[in-house]
């Protein structure tokens, strides 16, 4: 055990490990907050679709040789999020079909572009890194960390400010609209926040796993807790704990960061699921 702590403090001396932990905590905190809303509005799949879009955008950004990929990825993902979330009801192509189309489309185009305009010798390695975030979190630059901190604070602040509005819209959008809440505006806001969260989460766990950070903590917390507030707090706490545990295990055991975090989330879901069963069974 002392050996392990020594090894850990040795690693913590490296700035990139500290960066990884800061980004990990912030991203997992943000991503868990809107999880409840997305899960309950039956939008779980949107997170997944958006992460594929972000992958496509990333491919385009690297082909165009952008200095900072974020400036392309973020607006593109946000635009698609707005399209998917805000036009969901009255379109000819139904919501889930639209998401499926956009998501696989972006994935295919992204991979195609990366292959045609390849700049590196190891394409499959690059693609794998983007999709599963195998090492990207440990190669973060200081400016990327700052951007992540700014975006996370923005998400947290917006969520805190509009917490009750988001609750009202999630629980009953019709009622909210009928009683004077500008639901279109807040749906738009939710869409943009989701896009930011997905792009942030992509840094941490990679494009394919980003939606796991959104969905798992919320689903786990919903098994056990009974009010919206307690579910939100529990999901946020759980998400941060799982990410920390995941990052530390990944560093110590040399496993890929993204999938280790998601594995931790899955284990937590199992525990909460059992706890929920026991609790309900006891009644």
């Amino acid at each position, binding site marked *: 055990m002392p050996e392990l702590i020594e090894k850990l403090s040795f690693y913590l001396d490296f700035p990139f490990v500290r960066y990884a932990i800061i980004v990990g905590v912030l991203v997992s905190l943000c991503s868990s907050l809107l999880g409840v809303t997305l899960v*309950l509005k*039956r939008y779980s799949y949107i997170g997944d679709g958006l992460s594929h879009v972000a992958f496509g955008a990333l491919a385009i950004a690297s082909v165009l040789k952008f200095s900072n990929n974020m400036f392309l990825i973020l607006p593109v993902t946000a635009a698609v999020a707005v399209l998917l979330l805000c036009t969901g009801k009255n379109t000819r192509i139904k919501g889930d079909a639209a998401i499926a189309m956009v998501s696989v489309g972006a994935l295919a185009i992204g991979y195609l572009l990366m292959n045609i305009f390849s700049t590196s010798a190891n394409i499959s390695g690059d693609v794998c890194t983007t999709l599963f975030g195998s090492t990207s979190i440990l190669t973060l630059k200081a400016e990327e960390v700052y951007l992540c901190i700014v975006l996370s604070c923005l998400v947290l602040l917006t969520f805190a400010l509009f917490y*009750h509005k988001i609750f009202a819209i999630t629980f009953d959008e019709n009622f*909210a*609209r*009928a*009683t004077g*809440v500008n639901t279109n505006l807040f749906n738009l806001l939710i869409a943009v926040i989701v896009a930011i969260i997905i792009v942030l989460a992509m840094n941490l766990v990679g494009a394919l796993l980003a939606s796991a950070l959104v969905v798992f903590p919320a689903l786990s917390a919903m098994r056990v807790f009974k*009010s919206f507030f307690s579910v939100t707090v529990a999901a946020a706490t759980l998400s941060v704990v799982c990410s920390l545990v995941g990052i530390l295990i990944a560093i110590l055991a040399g496993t890929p960061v993204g999938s280790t975090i998601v594995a931790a989330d899955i284990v937590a879901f199992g525990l909460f699921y059992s706890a929920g069963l026991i609790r309900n069974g006891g009644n």
Partner: protein
Amino acid sequence: MNETTPLIKCRQLTLGYGSKDLVRDLDYEVNVGDYLCIIGQNGSGKTTFLRGLAGLLSPKSGNIELCEGLKRSEIGFLPQMNVVQKDFPASVEEIVLSAFQGKFRLLPLYGRAQRDRAMECMALTRTESLRKSCFRELSGGQKQRVLLARALCAADRLLLLDEPVTGLDPESTETMYHVIKDLHQQGMTIVMVTHDVEDGLDDATRVLNFDQISVKGK
């Protein structure tokens, strides 16, 4: 109370989805102090009309005018329960308080006045004891009463009810009608869509029948 003051005026109102019109060229007025029941077969357009009044559906032609300075934030609405709510982790208190979101623009917190009003509404609908309970664990009748409490919190002048007693047992139904009647006597204008032509119309002052689009006064 014999003179009638319109609260909502519908002029040449046409409502519908896609190419289908469910309400056509309707001229109608909801007056201050009405207890209006809307009846008709399934698909006759009664819920569509209520959604129009609630501002959830824009008119295809004609218009709906809110009179007497009535604002959306003064209208309470009891919609039919949706799928999302069946599995929703929220306490009764959180749901009832969410009624105030239309009233203030940016304040993120609820004040004393709102909490007191929420307690009053829960008392009126006999849901006080459920305050800390989880919504998804309540019975159908309890859920409906909680949603009515929320509608009351939002309703300052007008209450729109979409089939408030569907799926309730006789006892809950009676409680529901009793609560609505009390509210009406305290001066609230009520518009209710209902299937229950046996007991639902007992307290109504006016009936709008979508099967005949005939308007009867009482």
